[in-house]
């Protein structure tokens, strides 16, 4: 009985602390490490509560499936809206209108897809059409498991569309050649970075802009350089509170505050420092020099994520058709 009483009292004392699990995609490790510390400080000052945020990272598609299968994420910060939408479609963990819960369609920062090449750009890679050349090996993740990889694919498709117009056969052939030149298709963006940088495989890494900057920062601008293609896609990684989980954990308020804070000046500044393009005009202007200007198509050019997913990435879709023969 004494043990029981102590246990209950002990449990009561711990109520002031709160823990959140943020399930995210591959390249956001560094962003959220920094952001979590800032948010914890902010929350402590505001409420007196100590908040601990745990992070989980992996290919965006895989991460969404893990949450659907029972991983108790309080919030998700994934690579694309389609993956977040699956939490509603497959398990009703979030409301159908989840994208309206936060500003900018619940995407607090944006990014785009660029190239990283070895110093001096020995293969002279400038744009997407250099990736189809014989002898140019690219490294990127597999669109079947990675959200970032799907952005890569659609950016290449948009470039080919601009180049070949309505000639869909030529577009398909162009994109197919890129994937035929892929040395390794990793399961996530961070895996591709490892392949390119640490394993010294491939001539060009196709990746998130923030990941490209990170490669230069971590592994040396004397070894790699970023090549910005003429056209890419506006990647809008979305965020959402997982309602079913926070209801169970009693963390609804802090989870919402956690994502709200991403839109604050401080949150936006942290995003920019980690090479994500901020939404806040003031912060965006401050970091404008960091982000090169290029033509960006949006997911709307593909009819939205549901249509893009169905056409290109579901089993038997265009990606399977063009890549199946490899």
């Amino acid at each position: 009985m004494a043990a029981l009483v102590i246990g209950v009292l002990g449990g009561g004392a711990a109520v002031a602390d709160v823990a959140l699990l943020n399930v995210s995609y591959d390249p956001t490790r560094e962003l959220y490490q920094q952001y979590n510390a800032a948010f914890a400080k902010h929350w402590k000052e505001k409420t007196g509560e100590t908040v601990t945020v745990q992070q989980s990272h992996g290919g965006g598609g895989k991460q969404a499936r893990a949450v659907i299968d029972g991983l108790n994420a309080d919030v998700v910060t994934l690579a694309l809206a389609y993956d977040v939408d699956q939490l509603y479609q497959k398990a009703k963990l979030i409301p159908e209108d989840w994208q309206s819960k936060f500003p900018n369609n619940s995407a607090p920062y944006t990014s785009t897809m660029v190239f990283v090449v070895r110093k001096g750009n020995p293969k002279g890679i400038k744009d997407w059409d250099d990736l189809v050349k014989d002898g140019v090996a690219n490294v990127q993740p597999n669109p079947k498991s990675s959200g970032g990889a799907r952005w890569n694919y659609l950016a290449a498709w948009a470039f080919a569309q601009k180049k070949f117009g309505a000639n869909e056969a030529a577009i398909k052939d162009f994109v197919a050649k890129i994937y035929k030149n892929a040395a390794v298709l990793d399961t996530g963006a961070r895996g591709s970075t490892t392949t390119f940088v640490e394993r010294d495989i491939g001539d060009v890494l196709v990746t998130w802009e923030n990941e490209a900057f990170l490669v230069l920062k971590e592994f040396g601008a004397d070894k790699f350089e970023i090549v910005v293609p003429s056209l890419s896609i506006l990647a809008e990684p979305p965020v959402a509170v997982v309602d079913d989980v926070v209801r169970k954990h009693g963390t609804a308020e802090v989870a919402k505050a956690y994502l709200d804070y991403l839109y604050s000046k401080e949150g936006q500044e942290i995003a920019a420092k980690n090479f994500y393009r901020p939404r806040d005009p003031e912060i965006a202007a401050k970091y404008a020099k960091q982000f090169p200007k290029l033509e960006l198509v949006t997911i709307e050019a593909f009819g939205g994520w549901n249509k893009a997913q169905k056409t290109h990435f579901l089993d038997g879709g265009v990606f399977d058709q063009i890549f199946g023969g490899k």
Partner: protein
Amino acid sequence: MRRKKQNLKLAAAVPGLLAAFALPAHGKSDPRDALLERLEKRVHELEQKLAAQPAAAKDAKQGGGALTSASGDKQALDDLGRKVRVLERKFEVEKEVATDNAKKSPKFEMGSDGLRFTSAEGDHTVRLRGSLQGDAKVFMDDNARNAPSGSNSARGNNIADRFELRQARLWLEGTLWKDIDFKIMQEFGGSTSSLFDAYIDANYLPYAALSVGKQKTPLSLERLQGDADGNFLERAYPTYLASNREVGVMLHGSFAKPGYELEKRSGPVDFKNFVSYQLGVFNGSGDNTSPANVTTDTKDDKEFVGRIFAHPFQHSGVDILDGLGVGIAGSWEQPMNRAVASGTTATAASLVSPIGQNAFLNYANQGARANSGTSTITANGDHYRLYPQAYWYYGPYGLLGEYVDSSQKLLASNGAATAATTVKKTIQQDNHAWQIQASYVLTGEDNTFQSVKPRAPFDPSAGNWGAFQVVGRLSGLTVDKASFSNLGSTNSQFYLLDPTKSIQKANSFAVGLNWFLNKNVRIMTDFERTSFTGGGGTGAGTAASPYRVTDRPSENVWGTRFQLVF
């Protein structure tokens, strides 16, 4: 120097890569094997060429041809290195994907534990299990020449030697949502197919779990031992004074010794942890009632059963006492006019010889004795049982013992047609039974309550013979004398039990040898001698011919069993 380093890197990478690729190949021709073979050959050729380069450089003084060749080789070596690195990385990615897929795929295992399906995350498990027992029993010195006149098999003579399909069971057991255990067991042996176990056991709290359904009542220690785990072909007398399987609800729990982790038990009864308890309410159907299809109750009266069992010296550091388990169980019920004679077979409300399984006391088979006329016997009032019990296992040694004090109020009626001639008599029948058994594993394996697992399964070609165990048992039963007393008058006798048909005392002595071929197959052979006193041995008398009450002849039985359990 740099070239040498590159050679070393390649030399290390190729065998590593080959080893890595060897896993998925599994004897099937894998196109990657051929590719790797070619790569290995090419590396070897290039290494040989590079080793010869100092000589080539010397020759180059006389012309530039050799240098050009060396530069070409370096390029080829670089290309090859790249290919190896790509293949290595691709393999890593494939492995990552395969590991990820394996985590999501349900597992199917087929082995000596039967078939087991487990969900990817391990929360759900279903296991298909079964058991078969084929017995042979030979009764010795049981021919009519040795018996008094009027004797027959019901009185212990001319007992048929027989082969029996003692047990043929299939069951599903498992766990759903990590904490909900279940078991559904059907018995196909004997003459009818019947549901023996069917329960759900909610184990959210290990110290307060709840099982609902048809299950063994927690009374007799030997009854709670797995049906195929016992040392002898059949259980001893204390088991026959306990209820068998009953439908009801039971709260149960286990506690680990402070500072130690609780072990997961299988089923509602625990023989692993420091202390365990069971508290149950069941329909109640009397002593040793057949478990076949006991699924309903016609009365409000219920049987309350409780048991506590402990391993007081577990983790004490005193090894010799670590496997000592002691406990006590008890039951109480107050049935009203419940038949205690639901049939005439050995499995229905009868007391039987342990290994022979021949009825020597049957409440339903008293018949109308002259001047008696007892026709029905019912349980009608307090019935309690007390079961002190213990076992001890240490290395190859094992001991198990239990005692039961059972008291039940019985009502006998002559079943007369009119109230005026109806005679009813009541007794409080106090019965006792006990047993002690010892076992020793000759081959040195651990002796346990859950059977013996041979260290090396039977394989004569490898010189492995499985495990052998010798066993011995003493067991006795005493039926209340009042059951055999004349409750009426000299002219109008009234006996609850007919001493010419039922015995008052039985004592059995058994020895046996168990051969465990492997953890699934066992061959058993037992000899048991049972001596009876207090009647049951002569033919029925008549008013004109006085009764001659003699003891039932001793029963000598040799039994064997071939058992398979998975």
